[in-house]
């Protein structure tokens, strides 16, 4: 018993155990609903790994999730629950698209401009949450959720304004070619480009059939930068001190309000960066009216929680999500099971992540009694 308790104290073991339990729970639910669990897992695996383009799509799908995961995880490290990541992402998408559509610069300037716009917009929107908390003490969960809805309707409203709307469609124009971050995007659309790529085995297929873009690389870099920030800099030290014990932080002269605001600005910027890369890297490269949340931010919550709030962990956790969400489509196709089981699976994994925190303590409490009279 005690060996299990000790093992579970390590974060990586805990998370792997939670993922395993979550998948097992999903298998049980599928079995009850009449679908073969083994075949379902196999179908899931097939949907993720069996073709290079599948793997590429998983990576592409996980990229925005890594960003929103980072946006949540970073805030978590300093004690803030950034549920508003969804809204920050939406605003980032909106701002990036508007700039990408209206400004016409060569790629080498256009792309950085769009990315910076996305970061700025996300930062500003996240900053609202930070300000509301620092100045008025409003809890970031409530303000985040409210701002998410405000962002949704704001985006819908703006993208349909005559100034930005494209004709009769329910959205904006597409971001110009110069602003897109696809790998060899323009070239692969030409006749000769396509011909060359058809001959190259794995990577040719990936480039031709998927929206392979530079987003993943930047996501990994961002995670590394945030990890270094937290571990090795003065700012990271202060942010974590505030997150763990704001009273002690105050006692050594750290300005708590300033820190709260700074954290939300950074988190918002990360979400906004992810949004900009999402728009520039994935077709259709535009913003349309949404009837409901796309879920980037909501899934980002799950990504961060399963990553244990570690920035590097978000990379893997984001990939896990990407795999589940993308591969989940194969479930319907191969086994006939509703893809919504994936939603349940994700929720269950998060649930087990939460519970497993408390298991070592429980094991020790009951294990100790069984040990008997040692002295």
């Amino acid at each position, binding site marked *: 018993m005690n060996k299990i308790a000790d093992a579970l104290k390590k974060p990586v073991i805990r998370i792997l155990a939670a993922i395993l339990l979550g998948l097992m729970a999903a298998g049980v639910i599928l079995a009850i609903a009449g679908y073969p669990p083994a075949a379902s897992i196999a179908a899931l695996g097939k949907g993720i790994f069996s073709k290079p383009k599948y793997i590429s799509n998983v990576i592409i799908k996980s990229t925005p999730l890594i960003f929103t995961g980072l946006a949540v995880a970073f805030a978590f490290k300093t004690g803030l629950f950034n549920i508003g990541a969804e809204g920050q992402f939406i605003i980032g998408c909106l701002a990036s698209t508007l700039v990408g559509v209206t400004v016409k610069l060569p790629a080498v300037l256009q792309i950085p401009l769009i990315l910076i716009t996305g970061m700025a917009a996300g930062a500003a929107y996240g900053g609202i949450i930070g300000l509301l908390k620092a100045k008025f003490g409003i809890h970031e969960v409530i303000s985040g959720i409210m701002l998410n809805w405000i962002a949704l309707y704001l985006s819908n409203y703006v993208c349909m304004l005559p100034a930005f709307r494209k004709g009769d469609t329910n959205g904006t124009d597409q971001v110009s070619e110069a602003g897109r971050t696809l790998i060899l995007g323009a070239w692969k659309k030409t006749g000769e480009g396509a011909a060359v790529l058809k001959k190259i085995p794995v990577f040719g297929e990936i480039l031709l059939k998927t929206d392979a873009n530079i987003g993943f690389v930047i996501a990994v870099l961002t995670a590394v930068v945030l990890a270094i920030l937290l571990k090795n800099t*003065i700012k990271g030290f202060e942010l974590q001190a505030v997150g763990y*014990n704001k*009273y002690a*932080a105050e006692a050594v002269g750290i300005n708590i309000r300033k820190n709260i605001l700074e954290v939300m600005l950074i988190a918002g910027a990360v979400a906004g960066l992810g949004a900009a890369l999402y728009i520039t890297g994935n077709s259709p490269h535009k913003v349309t009216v949404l009837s409901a949340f796309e879920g980037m931010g909501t899934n980002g919550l799950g990504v961060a929680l399963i990553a244990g709030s570690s920035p590097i962990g978000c990379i893997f956790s984001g990939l896990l999500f990407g795999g589940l969400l993308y591969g989940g489509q194969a479930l319907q196709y191969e086994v006939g099971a509703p893809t919504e089981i994936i939603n349940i699976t994700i929720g269950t994994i998060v649930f087990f992540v939460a519970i497993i925190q408390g298991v070592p303590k429980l094991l020790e409490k009951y294990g100790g009694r069984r040990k008997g009279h*040692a002295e």
Partner: protein
Amino acid sequence: MKTISKEYAVQMHGITKKFGTFCALKNVELNVRAGTIHSLLGENGAGKSTLMNVLYGLYQADEGEIYLNGEKVKIKSPSDAIDLGIGMVHQHFMLVERFTVLQNIILGEEKLSRTGILDMKKAKREVEEIAERYGLSIDLDAKICDITVGMQQRVEIIKALYRGANLLILDEPTAVLTPQEIQELIKIMKNLVESGKSIIIITHKLKEIKAASDICTVICRGRYIDTVKVKDVNENQLAALMVGHDVKLVVEKEKAEPGEAVLEVEDLVVDNERGIEAVKGLNLQVRRGEIVGIAGIDGNGQKEFIEALSGFIKARSGVIRMNGREIQNTVPETVLESGISIIPEDRHKRGLVLEFSVIENAVLNKYRKEPFSNRGFLKKAEMEKFAAGLIEECDVRPADCAMTQAGNLSGGNQQKLIIGREVSNDPDLLVAVQPTRGLDVGAIESVHKTLIRERDKGKAILLVSFELDEIMNVSDTIAVIYDGKIQAVYEQGTVDENELGLIMAGGKQHE
């Protein structure tokens, strides 16, 4: 082991209690004769509270038996204890602050009307009757957060009596009382005993044991040591029993030679968090090479004074000058830069980040400066070196604790870490608020030695404590705070405890 007999209100025999691998109590004996006041003496962490928690049903012993009035009993929960006539007044009061006195007293034993709703009128009548019977006057409709600590203790006592307690357990009852209130409590206890109740007091205060109790049982590190008739022993003997070796009860120090004033406070006025004046024109001076001790009962403005001094809250008016520079109404950073280091009252709240490692806590107020950081990046090697030095110098245990979370250290070691860290700042003024709270005798001695050593180096020391003995032993100058003002200032040795107690409670100086 004593024979089981009806003469004893309670007998605990062979009690052993473990928490995981830690053995809190081993084979402990306790025999309390009915109608006596029995004290349970031991250091912090000796196991006295644990033993009483077993008696009250909050914990179950792993081994051992309990007998009440000669009958063997099983106490599995506080409800059982209450049903058996045991009442407990905890050291940290178990009172709901937002409720009224009456609500707290009847909680769990409510009187219901025929329709099933609360019958507060009936409850009030019954409680008033009990209060009168035992001579405990109290305002039943006041909210707990609005009454004094002494009154709150009364509420706890009435709570126990309302449930028909015959055996009362009082856990460190005098920790929060003035000398006068302590006398009143002793009178109440003797009254209760005369009405046939039995009382157990848990304490580490030797003076109160002598003054209040008939018999004393000593516990040390979870083991039963001895039971003595109080009138047959003196304080030094009791202390030796408690600690296991001879103990110096008086602090040794040279006479102070104070220099110029380092801290000057003039007419300071500070509001508390509810907007009411708590510091009402405080004047104080602390000089180099001097320890000034502020004696006073909790709640007379000490908290607000220190918070204003630290820069956490604003003063309404008045001046705080440090080395000639005004520092009131600035920020904590400015206060720290002016040469002040503070050992906070609540080490878990203000003193440490429990989730940070010992190394990180060691540099908690230094990480911004060379050599611990450079251009925004932390220099981990330098941090580790500094922490290692601190751990060794201050004897923080265990010796290899550098990477462990500060929350895993014992209270005493946490305090050593904090004091070492603050002293290493080489401040001009060292402020120590309740620095020995919760520490055992050895650690207390070491803290006092540190304060005196710093004083001898020429530092100014400001000591705030609710332990009158500590103030009287350690300070060179004693300032008494009452009602938000310094009412009187004395040189050490020129005033006795009774006079101090009087001023602390609002009386006037004897001329």
